């Protein structure tokens, strides 16, 4: 055995679209360098090779939605020195967490002819609800350059440099004209965490919050602004209840949006 072994990387999937783990393969210029710096121990989407744990760095995509997953995440945690969640499903339940606000039995019957064949939990929950998470990388999907920073940081045993400021900061840096001020377009930028590069405003549309809440989001003010721009309470609730509905700040804002509407 050589004394300095390469760090072992594992990538596991829970309920998700596969897009965040695809981001690893989308690092076309860096993929072979990353693969050279680590031993890929378990990454089913990319390799038939499966090595047993423990793993030095584990990336987890997806949310917990089945009885088996409740056990699987515990086993994965036990085998992982550091566990990083990647994307909105793993950090905030994902779009499939909309079941949390509905009757999952009725959902099951609406989609499947034989609902009795389908095993599912009533909720879709983020990974941190079940195990300790060392770092949460935001985004639906994640930004692949942020992912490279996180992998690099963990391999170097330093903290990742991932800003938690709002999309507005990125948008200003990019030199965009503000879509709210100039065009009256509803935009979640002020309450949403940066990381995407403010792409929606760059395409003349409002941010739709896919990176989840920034570190100090003023969602009450945002709700008032959205109403002023003509959105009905139910619409305001929907914008908070999309890809990050279980992030605490967005979850509370979704509930408050309709209560505010009832008062008004």
């Amino acid at each position, binding site marked *: 055995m050589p004394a300095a072994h390469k760090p072992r990387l594992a990538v596991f*999937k829970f309920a998700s679209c596969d897009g965040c783990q695809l981001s690893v393969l989308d690092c076309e210029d860096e993929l072979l360098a990353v693969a050279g710096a680590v031993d890929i121990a378990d990454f089913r989407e*990319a390799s038939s090779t499966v090595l047993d744990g423990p793993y030095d760095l584990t990336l987890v995509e997806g949310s917990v939605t089945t009885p088996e997953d409740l056990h699987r995440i515990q086993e994965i945690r036990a085998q992982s020195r550091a566990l990083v969640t990647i994307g909105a499903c793993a950090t905030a339940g994902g779009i499939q967490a909309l*079941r949390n606000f509905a009757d999952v039995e009725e959902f099951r019957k609406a989609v499947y002819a034989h609902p009795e064949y389908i095993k599912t939990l009533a909720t879709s929950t983020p990974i941190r609800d079940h195990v300790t998470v060392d770092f949460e990388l935001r985004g639906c999907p994640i930004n692949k350059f942020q992912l490279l920073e996180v992998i690099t940081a963990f391999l170097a045993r330093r903290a990742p440099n991932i800003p938690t400021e709002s999309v507005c900061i990125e948008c200003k840096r990019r030199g965009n004209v503000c879509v709210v001020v100039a065009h009256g377009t509803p935009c979640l930028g002020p309450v949403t965490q940066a990381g995407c590069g403010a792409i929606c405003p760059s395409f003349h549309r409002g941010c739709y919050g896919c990176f989840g809440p920034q570190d100090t989001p003023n969602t009450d003010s945002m709700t008032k602004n959205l109403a002023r721009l003509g959105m009905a309470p139910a619409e305001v609730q929907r914008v908070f209840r999309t890809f990050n509905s279980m992030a605490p700040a967005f979850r509370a804002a979704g509930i408050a949006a309709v209560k505010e509407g009832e008062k008004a």
Partner: protein
Amino acid sequence: MTERTIAVNYLARVEGEGALRVRIHDRTVEEVELKIFEPPRFFEAFLRGRSYREAPDITARICGICPVAYQMSSCNAMEQALGISVTGAVRELRRLLYCGEWIESHALHIYLLHAPDFLGYPDAIALAKDHPEAVKQGLALKKVGNALMTLLGGREIHPVNVRIGGFYRCPSREELEAIRPDLVHALELAETTARFVAGLTFPKIEEDYEFVSLRHPDEYPLADGEIVSNRGLRIPPSKYDETFEEIHAPYSNALQSVRKGGGSYLTGPMARYALNRDRLSARARKIAEEVGLEPIVTNPYRSIIVRAVETVFACEEALRIIDAYRPPAAPFVPPPDRLGPATGYGVSEAPRGILYHRYRLDAQGLIQDAKIVAPTSQNQKRIEDDLRSLVTRSLDLDEAALTNMCERAIRNYDPCISCATHFLDLDLVRD
């Protein structure tokens, strides 16, 4: 009396979570079950009550590999329901965005997921140690597809620029021309890819398929068209539900499609190529001839060559669109002022086959009912049929060889299990 089971509990190098179980009794294949255990996410249920405007962004999250397909099929369906049609430069930009997704997805499948099977490697990283140039060229090709999606859509996964009626913002000519040199290079790489994959060794297998794809009067199908088959089917998307049905097998979280009153069918590159070869661009047709690709491919292992030919097409088509581009007067066709209750049907060609969406809207434009049929659900039954025929002919192989063969057979279809809910675990029982 002997009983054998072949089991793959988690299929690798496919998108999503699936398993395979084959039960053999006295040299007869009794059961083939492609199990999709990707957890259900209930998109069709939670789309109810959402605005028609939200469908492209929400349904894109069904699949990180082919989000553009979901955006295009949902736009087609909603636009039909709203009574608007998208033409001219905006429609061309949709095809251009779709070319980006085809290049990215086909390059991913050819080099990172499928080629290692033919050359005996567990993955592309191991392949790169012995064949670095091949893998680097695959990554370079994939990168151009992603760059095209990023240029038009802001990012490669879940692009943000698609809306009902068109785009939020259309690019300038200069923005599009900036990517031209990369696409010229990608076209050459795609041709090299076709030559490379045509030189692989293929098992000798022929299957009898009903091919189903879209067909357009004068284009190779991408974002729209009629649904046709090699057995005389020709229907508009609105007749899909009358023609196909979904059945729910007890072992799967995905619904399987069949022709009503008929059996399984195949959608995807082999079907598109068989039914639309006459619509391929010039260099794509030329390379198909050069590498000796038969006009109708019935050996599923050779689908890798068809994907390469389609990648040549996608690069050439992207260049054609860029060269002819004049920015449209408006980036989107606005929705009508008054909505009525309406139903819309939309189909487009995802890299792995046709993707069907149907929505019923109320007078406020809220979704009352949604139906989405992913290409992998449609191919699932056909994959099982292929496996049954393959295992029947290969009963003398040992477990490891048989299991490996089954996994390879499944990867021929580039299944996307995140889509079909999601992929694979082989469980082979020999009674």
